[in-house]
């Protein structure tokens, strides 16, 4: 694939105004699926499952099967709609979106079309640089996820050229809320950062509501980014592209930036933009053309005759409104105070999109300082090196456990970093890694004393110096002991014991 020509970003902004629109799919973490009693793999309890084990006749679209709406998913959707500042429809309807694809068991998706459950909202989004945007929400509607295809054979991993494809219907019917923004104007050079911050805010909201695991690397939160450019001074919107497969915060920002630069180069060259979906490639940092998409795509929507309209009572809506958690901006102010962070420290957490992780790590028992240190330090460094989101590397529970192992003296910082490597490599919880790799600090004085006595015996000159009061000479012995203990000793304790052994007979 020929690499597309890109225009310098600043130059592109000089010539064109970027307009973005974002579609975010949030997988709800209800116990069961949107329309069946099958366990929901978007709930952590069922995340790990053999293919095609979380299914009922409904998930497979077997003849005769019928959907039934999951009431809990409706409640979650209403809560999400309210948190997005939306109106909740007194009556909304499901519709069938008809198209043939092997991951879609019924060859239609049950979605909402002209009557979404929530509409006309607004979300406050704050950027790293302090700019605050009100992002207009057009609608949030309920639908079901499709199954998952694995294409075997062929070089691309895509359906073209594959020898055969495997279908896993575990994901078929997972409850989704699709949140669609109106076109967002005025972000200018901040458009890529706004896209990223918007999705991060949606994630904050979903997590604070407790309605989704909201882990991007698991596909709990997925973003399609629409980008168009219009020449400065032009009223009419330009042709847009829709970039899919953007599965991390970093890539959202990069993908929007890339599309701005790519489209600018084409337009400046007198070309025109094809309305199409584009696939984001994490490895190359580029997008490639998917299928052409036009407004004339005909999904033959019609009201789903197997389901009744969703008519939430005003009491239910008010009950859910009263139970809404504080908005993300207010929560940030509160957390900063509770944790006693400086402006700089707190902004560091926010800017790394790690507020949720730090909050959850504190909730799991770590001190705020330790939680911040691990996430914005070691984990952020590794994430950066691997080009992934830090959140995908470890769970808050594991980080809290690690911090507690350090606090209790079981691990030194140095050992803890090795343990973290093991956790990231999937070797289990920190305690399991400690046990498996034998990384705990040796706190048995007997073992330390044996090593010290041996070191002192092999370095009689050092022993003499210590006895002469030249305490700093002990360093050489301490080094030898730490080496003998393979680093699994507390250096301060070793020092104490060396001085003690050197001055006794």
């Amino acid at each position, binding site marked *: 694939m020929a690499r597309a020509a890109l225009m310098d970003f600043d130059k592109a902004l000089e010539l064109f105004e970027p307009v973005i629109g974002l579609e975010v799919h949030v997988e709800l973490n209800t116990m069961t699926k949107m329309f069946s009693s099958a366990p929901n793999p978007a709930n952590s309890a069922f995340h790990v499952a053999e293919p095609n084990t979380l299914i009922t*006749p409904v998930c*497979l*679209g*077997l*003849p*005769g*099967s*019928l*959907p*039934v*709406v999951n009431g809990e998913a409706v409640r979650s959707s209403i809560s999400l709609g309210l948190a997005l500042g939306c109106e909740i429809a007194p009556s909304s309807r499901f519709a*069938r979106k*008809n198209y*043939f694809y*092997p991951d879609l*068991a*019924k*060859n*239609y998706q049950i979605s909402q079309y002209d009557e979404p459950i929530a509409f006309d909202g607004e979300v406050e989004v704050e950027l790293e640089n302090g700019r605050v945007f009100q992002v207009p929400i057009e609608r949030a509607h309920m639908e079901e996820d499709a199954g998952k295809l694995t294409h075997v054979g062929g070089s691309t991993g895509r*359906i073209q050229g594959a020898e055969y*494809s495997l*279908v896993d219907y575990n994901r078929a019917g997972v409850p989704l809320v699709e949140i669609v923004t109106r076109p967002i104007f005025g972000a200018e050079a901040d458009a890529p950062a706004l896209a990223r911050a918007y999705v991060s805010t949606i994630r904050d909201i979903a997590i604070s509501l407790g309605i989704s695991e909201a882990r991007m690397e698991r596909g709990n939160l997925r973003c399609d980014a629409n980008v168009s450019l219009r020449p400065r001074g032009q009223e009419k919107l330009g042709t847009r592209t829709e970039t899919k497969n953007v599965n991390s915060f970093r890539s959202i920002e990069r993908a929007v930036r890339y599309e701005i630069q790519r489209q600018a180069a084409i337009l400046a060259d007198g070309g025109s933009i094809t309305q199409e979906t584009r696939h984001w490639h994490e490895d190359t940092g580029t997008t490639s053309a998917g299928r052409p998409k036009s407004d*004339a795509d*005909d999904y*033959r*929507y*019609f009201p789903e*005759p*197997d*389901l*009744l309209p969703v008519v939430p009572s005003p009491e239910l809506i008010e009950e859910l409104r009263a139970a809404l958690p504080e908005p993300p901006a207010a929560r940030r102010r509160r957390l900063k105070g509770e944790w006693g962070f400086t402006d700089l420290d707190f902004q560091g957490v926010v800017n790394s999109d790690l507020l949720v992780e730090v909050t959850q790590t504190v909730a799991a028992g770590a001190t705020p300082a330790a939680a911040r240190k691990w996430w914005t330090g070691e984990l952020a460094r590794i994430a950066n090196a691997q080009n992934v989101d830090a959140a995908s590397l470890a769970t808050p529970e594991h980080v809290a456990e690690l911090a507690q192992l350090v606090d209790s003296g079981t691990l030194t910082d140095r050992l803890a970093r090795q343990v973290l490597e093991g956790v990231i490599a999937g070797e289990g919880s920190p305690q399991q890694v400690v046990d498996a790799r034998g990384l705990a600090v040796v706190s048995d004085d007997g073992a330390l004393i044996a090593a010290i006595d041996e070191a002192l015996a092999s370095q009689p000159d050092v022993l003499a110096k210590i006895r002469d009061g030249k305490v700093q000479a002990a360093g050489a012995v301490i080094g030898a002991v730490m080496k003998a203990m393979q680093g699994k000793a507390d250096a301060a304790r070793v020092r104490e014991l060396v001085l003690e052994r050197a001055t006794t007979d």
Partner: protein
Amino acid sequence: MSEIIRLTAAELGAKIAAGEVSSVEATRAHLDRIASVDGAVHAFLHVNDEGALAAAADVDRRRAAGEAFGPLAGVPIAIKDVLVTEGMPSTAGSRILEGWIPPYDATPVRLVREAGMIPLGKTNMDEFAMGSSTEHSAYGPTHNPWDLDRIPGGSGGGSAASVAAFEAPLALGSDTGGSIRQPAHVTGTVGVKPTYGAVSRYGSIALASSLDQIGPVTRTVLDAALLQDVIAGHDPHDSTSIPEAWPSMADAVRRADVAGVRIGVVKQLDSGGVQAGVRSRFHESLALLERNGAEIVEIDAPNFEYAIAAYYLILPAEASSNLAKFDSVRFGLRVTPEGGGTVEQVMAASREAGFGPEVKRRIILGTYALSAGYYDAYYGSAQKVRTLVQRDFENAFAKVDVLATPTAPTTAFKLGEKLDDPLAMYLNDVATIPANLAGVPGISLPAGLAPEDGLPVGIQFLAPARQDARLYNVGAALERLLEAEWGGPLLNRAPDLSSHEMAAAEEGVI
């Protein structure tokens, strides 16, 4: 012919309860009857011999152990192949589902099993319930027991014929535009389409979700009532099933009395378009009811004439979507084009080979009706007509308790007669379709034989939604009055199929 198979379901249930006949004996008698006449009738696509006898033995054993059962326990029943049955093939009359064994029971099937009834097998039908003659079955037509050269009605011709031929005391059917009532009309049997939502659709292979309803196919009104009492009720697996509890329909039959009942005759459905003998039997029935205290009122339902047009947009639209799942990926027939093919090509080849011409015709119609740019003109307009038809019913039921119509315009026509004329075939359902569009219940019961051809004629009653009991009241009253005039059930005058048993045996089964 064994005496057991001549019994109504209620009588047979009573004899089984009294210990005079065992369920195994009853089941075997019907299996024997199927073995001897179904070669000629072809009501069944699958006969569940071993399963039925095992289920019957189980019920006999449990009854001997003191378990309490309802009035139909131990009674065999035929099941329309549109309902999925665990462990039994379920094809909906289509090649595309040949050999598929569902892993679950439809709710009505589960309910009849739980009531101790014995599924005898699966009955023939027009493919995916599209038709009025069973000639669109991929497995060959069913023959009308009154005249084997004639159609048994459709789509549920198999269920109606099985009951009319005494192969089963009663059966389950499905009615989307008349598929229970029109076969009842042409076979001299009783068929009820309950209120939409009365019986769960879970496990009924969907034709048109907003029109489909499962109901009883029987020889008497009481049997239909007893079966509706078994299968009606809320099902959490079907969002469109009605949550409220139902009164006993059997009680309505036992209290049957038409004195003071206002019966409306729909002007638009009592016209010259109806065969003379069908119309005369209809008016004789009305006169009989009037003599026994009913009040007959003419009713204007101006929008009924548009019902058939609206129906043939709504039904294909929903069907085109409902039938999309038959793509060979997860179940059913798979046809791979020569030299392999992409998944799209395999889907297309499977659907091309698996669906019959009537199914393809309706999928194309429905796909077109739902297309962008045509939706408002077709599907949207049809939904408006539907609302108008509902309004006609509301206006009518403000004046009368039930409506009456001839069930269908003609008696059974010859096999092949209308096969190449879809519009003529569609017009069979002109009187039955309005009930499906409005979701109201309807019953068809025998009104006699048409003088000109000696074939059965049915009369249809319709009631407001949830007032199914009114149908059983009027239907049972008329049945009693007519049988008193006839000196017994109409089916006593049906030909004795034993000559065909002989013929079938000699020819080595048709």
